[in-house]
């Protein structure tokens, strides 16, 4: 099941500069493990030591926050788009509108 993964700018040093990747995974958990196989160390950036996704990393499957789906068990199907977005870091060098930046007036 090939899904598209969008990598935020600060993590692209780990993905050889790639902003978008295609990978095979049936769930978000699998996707993270798979990414870590291909790009060693990326899981430590995305997850706490206990394996849970860090509080200030938002993960979206087709624009829906996985916290409101099934979290890391959220299933993926072919063609899904997964976005990894730092909650407050913002910014996007590829011109794509970054979504869901948390706010403070």
């Amino acid at each position, binding site marked *: 099941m090939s899904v598209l993964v969008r990598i935020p700018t600060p993590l692209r040093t780990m993905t050889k500069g790639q902003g978008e990747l295609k990978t095979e995974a049936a769930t978000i958990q699998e996707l993270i493990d798979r990414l870590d196989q291909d790009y060693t160390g990326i899981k430590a950036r995305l997850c706490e030591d206990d394996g849970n996704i860090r509080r200030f990393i938002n993960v979206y499957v087709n624009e829906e926050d996985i916290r409101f789906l099934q979290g890391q068990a959220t299933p993926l199907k072919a063609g899904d788009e997964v976005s990894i977005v730092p909650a407050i870091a913002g910014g996007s060098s590829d011109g794509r509108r970054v979504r869901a930046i948390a706010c403070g*007036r």
Partner: protein
Amino acid sequence: MGYVKGLKCRECARPYPHKPLHVCEFCFGPLEVDYDYPAIGRAVDHRSIESGPPNIWRYRALLPVEGEPVVGRYCGFTPLVRARNLGKALGLTQLYVKNDTVNHPTLSFKDRVVAVAVIKALEFGFPAVACASTGNLANSVAAHAAEGGLTSFVFIPSDLEQGKVVGTSIYAPNVVAVDGTYDEVNRLCSEVADKYGWAFVNINIRPYYAEGSKTFGYEIAEQLGWRAPEHIIVPAAGGSLITKVWKGLKEFYNLGLLPAVPTRMHVAQAAGCGPIVNSIKAGSEIIRPVKQPRTIAKSLAIGNPADGYYAFKVVKDSGGSGEHATDEEIVEAMRLLAVTEGIFAETAGGVTVAAAKKLVQQGVIGRDEVTVISVTGNGLKTQEAVASALRIPTHIKPTLTSFDAALSQNLTVAGGSGVRRDA
């Protein structure tokens, strides 16, 4: 001169230098200012603070600035009003209103954070300051930038109250009205900050900016005679104020300036945009963003609060709670505060008063417990919200007969006809 050690990630505690950074590059958590507390403890006591100037700079040792404040020198130390009349109306004997409707220079608590932020922007040598704002922040950034001789850019949602737009434009900043919600404005500003390298006070200067809010809590404690109240009701938009008021009280306690902090911190939000209160009521630390905020309390209309999780945590840690206010309740509470205490608060003040009322009714706040309602902005900025609910003036001709007729028909006089007998 200052006591800043550097910055520290609030999540993973990684240290960062004293620079305009705001996000941990490892775990993406927010950065926070780290101080040399033992040194502050040696330098500060009740007397040293009391002998300081009557503004936020009496707490300078606990603020992240280096030299003498160069802007916002008269900010803060606003009245802590002993609100006997409002207390009577709500059923409380020990009620206070922390009144930032008269903060200097732009009549909201935002002057506290912006004074610090603009000083930092100058310290760091930024060519321009900027902000994404629901209005009060816009006023304050434009005013302080003018004072500091900095160019400013202010991004606001295009549906803001006229008072807030005029109250910004007078200082001649670059005002950009964005067709979108505040959350969309903020998102855009994150990209602008990256591209243009300006000091966005609530984005890349945020760790420093947010520290200014602690002074709201410091003042409450000092003005109560160096004690912390049993309840503080705080309005929440991004959720930063409540976390910093709490931090301020804890710092005072740790420095030996307060004997105890028994304070329960309560969050007040509008019913039409209450992501933090929703989480508190649901008992879930996950803040579900509100996509389309709908409330007259536009200064609180942030659907995706940056400090929502931390605000939630402060409420949990302090044994507090959260309450909503509908638009009708907001207007009613604004009027109640005005007619009981003579204080004209903006809509956010209506939200806190309305929330306090509910907390009393629910028995969360006890009759004789020391309670502080935070009023963070001035009603003259949001007149549209209440104008239609108010009694219009009684029109008369310039004759005594006309006035007499009006008096017998339309006007209210407490304690009788109002005709003087001693003439």
